[in-house]
């Protein structure tokens, strides 16, 4: 290891963006388009759009184990194995090797990482939902945790701003619980989904709608201008999309930022700390270590956007110690690393349907149905706080059904070459309430191969989640039964840890009071105003809808504020 003392000037930019995933992509786009010279520091390797998606066009037989993880992969991707899918051969190259990047668990946490340019924007579920007005008031109303310092109206124009650029497919439902976005045309429901939608509305008054997804169903001129094309319905999204049809850093925000000529992207740079100048009372830049060469290098800027995702962003601040901040930059409240939230899932029901044997579908829709929250909403009152939504879908059985039914030979084979009966499933996504004792810390002595302290998790679901899951399981079965499905089976897998939803949030929450929160209403660190944080770390509560759209909106909003403040010379 050696210290590179380059001329400070060469390493000076207007803004530093730490991380290049969903929120980092938005930070680089918005800041460069508003005139700033930006350097984006990404800890992982570069993954080039299209040419970097090494498995995107492969057929099943081109994978050695036809997709399944082998024993060696199972050992190396030990956290990924807990999901049941991320260690598969088709997309494992985009997930982190847990053996090489270990973490520790006092109480379990399923930490699924993707360290490379684009981060998990290449791997996300692409389900895209606005929060509702109640979501931002929930903590205050329930008298738990701290209140959000912003409301829906503060974010609404920014939701519109990011939706238009992103491209969100969906149908207008006019529901206060799930505000509509600016939509591209919706994807279609299949026969059974249409049937269940109709029956559940008729018999239970609950809405089932098509999932809202960040896929281009009808590219607009500004999408095409970036080289993005319409969805081809391959449903191989996690390998990377060679058509640029779903929103990712590579397909959308990074090319937009590059067009300005003001973006410098530097892969392989692990940010180890934010440097703080006690005299100026602000951050001056960041220190990095190259993941391959171990070279230490500093970058300087007027403002810093932390977009490394909830756990890494907060750990970088924890690791940024000075005499002003002995417990980590911005950690006067001791809230850094606390209140880890996720969405709890692996609970729901599925069943089979007799009928529609003369109906099928064409194409692999990378989307399903969505049931918006109805519990603890309006006049409904349960013995737990908050609520849940469902994602699900219907389809006809494939050849896999042959494993558990008796038979073999010619007739057996021929039967498996035809589609099986219809089944439909609904899987819950529940809101997790913030709890200070759900946290991570940095290990006092154990270091990773770059000399950085290893993350230690100590988190678990609580009573509120456990109670909610009973409803999540039973309600799903009730809806399917109401729609006439048979053999309805419920499941409630309680073996999963927080983190399994891959929606980590809350480790540097926004709030009104610096004594109880890390970030203010403008996404600035309360006590160090030129450091902004707009990834999952910022979340004060979790809602039950997928979070990425809200990170995007928070980032675009903070970027505008930051540039305005710079112009006013307030930063």
């Amino acid at each position, binding site marked *: 290891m050696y210290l590179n003392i380059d001329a400070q000037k060469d390493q000076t930019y207007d803004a530093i963006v730490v991380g290049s995933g969903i929120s980092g992509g938005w930070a680089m786009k918005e800041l460069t388009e508003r005139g700033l010279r930006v350097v984006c520091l990404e800890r992982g390797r570069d993954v080039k759009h299209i040419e970097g998606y090494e498995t995107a*066009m492969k*057929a*099943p*037989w081109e994978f050695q*184990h*036809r997709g*399944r993880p*082998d*024993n060696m992969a199972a*050992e190396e991707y030990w956290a990924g*194995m807990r*999901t*049941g*899918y991320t260690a598969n051969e088709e997309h494992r190259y985009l997930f982190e090797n847990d053996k090489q990047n270990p973490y520790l668990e006092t109480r379990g946490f399923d930490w*699924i990482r993707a360290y490379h340019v684009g981060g*998990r924007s290449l791997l996300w*579920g692409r*389900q895209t939902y606005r929060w509702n007005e109640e979501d931002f008031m929930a903590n205050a109303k329930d008298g738990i945790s701290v209140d959000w310092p912003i409301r829906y109206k503060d974010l609404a124009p920014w939701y519109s701003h990011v939706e238009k650029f992103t491209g969100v497919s969906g149908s207008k439902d006019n529901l206060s619980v799930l505000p509509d976005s600016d939509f591209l045309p919706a994807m*279609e*429901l*299949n026969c059974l989904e249409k049937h269940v939608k109709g029956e559940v509305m008729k018999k239970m008054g609950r809405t089932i709608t098509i*999932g809202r997804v960040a896929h281009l169903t009808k590219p607009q001129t500004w999408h095409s201008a970036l080289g993005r094309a319409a969805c*081809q*319905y391959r*449903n191989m999204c996690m390998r990377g999309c060679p058509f640029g049809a779903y929103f990712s850093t590579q397909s959308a925000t990074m090319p937009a930022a590059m067009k300005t000529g003001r973006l410098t992207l530097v892969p392989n740079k692990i940010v180890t700390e934010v440097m703080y100048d006690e005299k100026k009372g602000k951050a001056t830049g960041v220190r990095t270590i190259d993941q391959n060469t171990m070279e230490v290098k500093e970058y300087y800027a007027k403002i810093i956007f932390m977009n490394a995702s909830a756990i890494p962003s907060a750990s970088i601040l924890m690791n940024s110690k000075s005499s002003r901040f002995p417990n980590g930059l911005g950690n006067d409240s001791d809230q850094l690393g606390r209140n880890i939230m996720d969405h709890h899932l*692996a609970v729901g029901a599925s069943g089979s349907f007799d009928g529609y044997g*003369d109906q099928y579908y*064409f*194409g*692999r829709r990378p989307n*399903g149905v969505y049931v918006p929250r109805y519990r603890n909403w309006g006049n409904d009152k349960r013995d737990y706080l908050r609520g849940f939504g469902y*994602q*699900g*879908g*219907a*389809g*006809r*059985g*494939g*050849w*896999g059904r*042959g*494993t558990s039914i008796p038979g*073999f*030979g*010619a007739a057996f*084979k021929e039967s*498996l*070459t*035809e*589609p099986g009966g219809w*089944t439909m*499933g609904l*899987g819950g996504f529940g809101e997790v309430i913030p709890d200070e004792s759900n946290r991570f810390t940095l290990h006092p002595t154990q270091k990773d191969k770059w000399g950085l302290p290893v993350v230690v998790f100590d988190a678990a679901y609580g009573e509120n989640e456990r109670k909610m899951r009973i409803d999540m399981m039973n309600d799903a079965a009730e809806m399917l039964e109401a729609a006439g499905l048979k053999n309805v*089976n419920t*499941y409630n*897998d309680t073996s*999963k840890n927080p983190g399994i*939803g891959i*929606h980590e949030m809350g480790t540097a929450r926004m709030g009104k009071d610096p004594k109880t929160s890390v970030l203010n209403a403008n996404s600035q660190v309360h006590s160090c105003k030129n450091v902004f944080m707009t990834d999952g770390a910022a979340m004060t509560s979790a809602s039950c809808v997928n979070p990425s759209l809200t990170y995007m909106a928070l980032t675009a909003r903070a970027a505008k504020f930051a540039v305005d403040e710079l112009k006013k010379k307030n930063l």
Partner: protein
Amino acid sequence: MNRREALSRVALLMGGTLSAPTLMAFGNNPATLNTSADFVLNDAQRALVSEIADIIIPRTSTPGAKDAKVGPFIELMLKDCYRAQEQQNFVEGLADADARAMKVHNKKFLETTPAEQTALLTQIEKDTMELMKNANVKQVKVGDNVDKEVVEGKKLKGTPFWRLMKELTLFGYFTSEEGATKALNYVPIPGKYEGCIPYKKGDKAYAL
């Protein structure tokens, strides 16, 4: 990832088609898996595996398991993706097939007639289902597209031979180029999605 998944969000979005082969799970902590990379079959065992696979999926108007080289695939999968217990069960299962043939017909399995082979495998399947039933193997959903089988008690030592043989034959065949493109409708780039189209008996299911 927000991703999908077990719970797999990914699987959820595939429309819950339950097409993923079920995997027996006797605890999924890889650290506790006893694995052996030294697994290898001899020529006689290889011939037997290929033959049984071809009896499960014979050549009809479309290619069969032998055409799709399912035998070597099964060996590779057992070596790379399964535990020592399953490897042992598999080898013992092959020996058992020969022993059963010897007992009834005084011949090795491969030397018996097709009708005798069918009868032997039918009995093996029946015995396996009974064995699994007695061990209280329950199919449990852990997600909309992911089934897991849990075994209560210690009555069953790993996945039984026939179950491995059948699952790997179907998996190997329907994901092979021959199986996916000839026995199923392989559409790598659909280009569009239509939610409801007419289906005629005899039309092939999609390979993906």
